[in-house]
Structure formats: C-alpha cells, structure tokens
C-alpha cells in the first residue's frame, strides 16, 4: 500500500508537469497508449507507464503485458552511462530490453526536454524565499536525475544503432524502401534490355 501511495504521488507530479509544460503533450503524442514496463529487479517491483492522450498513468503492477520493457537492478538502471556497456550488460543478464525501443525513447525524450519554471509556480503557493530553498534542493536531486536521464537517452540511442539492431528505425525503413525502389527500377531496365536482345536475335 505504501508503494501504491508513492506511485500515486509520482503520477501526480508527472501530471502536474503535463499541465505546466504545454508542449509535453505534443511530445508524448507518438507514444500515446503505449505501455512502457519498467521492471526493477532488486525491488521486485514493476511499474507501467501509459500516456493516454491527456494524462500519464503510472501503476505498480504484476501484469506482464507491455509494448516495451526495461528490466534491471536499480543500480544498473542508474548507472547506465556508457552505451558500450549495454551489450555487455545484456550478455551478462544484468539488463533486459524487449519490445519497441522507440517507446522508451519517446517517453524519455519528452521528459528530457521538459521546460517548466518550477520556482515560479512554487512561489505562488509558498512565497519566494522558501520556494528558492525548496528549489535548490530539488535542483540537486534533479541534476542527479538528469544524469540518469541523459544516460538513458544515450543508451537507447546507442542501442538503436548498436550491433544488436533490435528494432528498425523509421529512417532505416525509408532507406530500405528507397533501395528496393532503385533495385526494382534496375531490374525493370535489365528486363527490357534482355527482351531487346531476345528480339534482335
């Protein structure tokens, strides 16, 4: 029940962020209705995040249905610095990634680009000085969080380009389509030439 309560608080904060930064909704649009499951192994807890178009929903759950899943110990999750480590971590069974990684990236990008003047909003409720103090505390915490965020971002970007090639990026797909089109053209030309040759014989 305590976890449940804390999760509810975090969900509230995330949704406050949605209200305060009006660009977030647009940024989250690509991941609408996509379930990101975060499995923190050593806590033996799983969390699912879903953006439903207006709100973020965060639940502590035992369900195993997801569109994208990240599983690791909390230390591993926090320490994801060097993208090169990823493959290694996966091989060592310390990290698991499943599903469409663009979803994890979608959620993480949206919050990385968050632009909210928290002290300004805070001071409206508790006055300027306390707001500043609270803000300093939060900034310290946030810088820690940012590092993690950045790591996660790099990590995911890297992973998408990594030898693992777990998922096909839309750009890759576009390139592939283009290549196919070229190839098709060339085959058609070849066919024409063969036909010409056959006829001239």
């Amino acid at each position: 029940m305590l976890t449940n309560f804390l999760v509810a608080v975090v969900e509230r904060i995330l949704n406050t962020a949605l209200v305060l930064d009006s660009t977030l909704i647009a940024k989250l649009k690509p991941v609408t209705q996509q379930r990101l499951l975060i499995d923190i192994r050593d806590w033996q807890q799983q969390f699912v995040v879903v953006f439903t178009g207006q709100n973020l929903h965060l639940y502590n759950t035992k369900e195993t249905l997801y569109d994208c899943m990240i599983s690791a110990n909390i230390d591993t999750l926090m320490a994801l610095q060097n993208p090169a480590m990823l493959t290694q971590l996966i091989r060592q069974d310390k990290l698991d990634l499943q599903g469409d990684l663009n979803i994890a990236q979608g959620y993480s990008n949206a919050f990385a680009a968050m632009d909210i003047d928290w002290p300004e909003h805070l001071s409206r409720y508790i006055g300027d000085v306390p707001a500043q103090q609270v803000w300093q505390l939060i900034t310290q915490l946030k810088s820690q969080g940012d590092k993690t965020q950045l790591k996660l971002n790099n990590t995911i970007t890297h992973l998408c380009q990594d030898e693992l090639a777990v998922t096909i990026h839309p750009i890759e797909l576009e390139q592939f389509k283009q290549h196919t089109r070229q190839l098709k053209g060339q085959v058609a030309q070849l066919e024409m030439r063969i036909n010409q040759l056959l006829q001239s014989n």
Partner: protein
Amino acid sequence: MNENPEKTAHFGYKTVAETEKASMVADVFHSVATKYDVMNDLMSFGIHRLWKRQTIASSGVRKGHYVLDLAGGTGDLTAKFSQLVGDTGQVVLGDINSSMLKVGREKLHNLGLVGNIDYVQMNAEALPFPDNSFDLITIAFGLRNVTDQNKALRSMYRILKPGGRLLVLEFSKPEHELLNKAYDFYSFNLLPKMGELVANDGESYKYLAESIRMHPDQETLKTMMNDAGFEQTTYQNLTGGIVALHRGFKY
C-alpha cells in the same frame, strides 16, 4: 404455518423479504448519491483511491478493451478505464440506481470524458448483455449490496469473454483481531455520526456499516467465485484485510 415461506435476505443486520432488499438498497443510494464522493473520501480518509488504483493495476486493461464497471456508482473506475481503453475501446458504467448513474454521468462529463462511455441501468443479477462480451468486469464496493450474490457472479461469468477477468473490490475481514475491533468501533460509532453530520443521513451509513459486516469473508467469496465457474481465483488483502481484491478468470 405458511406453506410457502417468503425468501429472505440480509439488509444490514435486518432480515427482510428478498423482494424488498433491492428497493431498500435503492433508497440508501438515492439518498446518498450527491454526497457520495465526499463521504467516500471522508470515511476512508481518501484510502479508497488507493484501493481503486490497486484494482486498476491488477486489471490488465489496455487499448481497445471492452470493460464493464458494475455497480459503478459515481464512476471513479470508469474515469480511469475510459482513458486506458482509448478511442478503440468502450466502457459501460452499470448501476441499478438512476441517481448514482446521473451523478456519475455529470462528473465524468465535467472531466471531459465523453465518447467511449455508456451509462446503463442494470441489475447485477441479470446482466443485459450477450454471452462472452467483456474483457474485464469490475465490481467495487457493490457486491455486498446485491441480493443474490451467487446469481450475480454467475451472470458476470456468462458475459465475460474467455480469457476475460473479474475483479471484486469489497470490504472484508481484517486479518488481526485488534484491527478488527478498532474498525468495528469506527464503523458502528463514528461512521454513522459522520454520515449524520455531512450527508444528514445516519441511517444509510448505519446500513453501510452493517452490510460490510454481513458480507462474506475472503475465503468464502473465493469459494463463491469458484462455484460460479471462475478459475485461478486469488485475493489480495488491502489495508490489513479491511478490503480485499478478488480476481478470477474465465477460460
């Protein structure tokens, strides 16, 4: 002696004719409908929100699902489900009581939740849907008010799709004797007083307290669900067993 004695049911601690219970329960909820949400928060110190969150977390609900929030009252669960099933899904808020449905509809409209919610008046004992219709049925704090609970469970089983699940959130039996005592004192002394003060309706809240105590405990409800056909039935105690969340599947 009467050849054909009238069947009876519990109305709180009173025993009443089975045919009467439904209308007596209706009176209770007509009279509390408008104050229902405020009282819920007050009575449970807001904890009912956490119990409901747990229900959603255990529901496996997702985009495209067809969900019945039975005895849904003012629609707390429906509000969340409506967002989680999205445009391609649908939620039915079902309740026997038109006043509760009306309050629910207004509340959800004001939250901007329109488009994928139906409001249907229905009795849990005879659900007006074809077999194998729903992916999920929830009944939160509703089952104890139903006259023939076994019949209601069978009806829910019938309209669930194979692979679908039922979640019953309901008051139950606290695991520890001390908690049980404290809880008794709270619900029989304080709760009706709060009802009196806030909703001006002590009697209704006295009924609520009594009906909670008459409701089957964890194991009994689990057996009832199995008897109705549910499989893999499990329950989870919340807040020391004051409330239990039962879950069963239809295969």
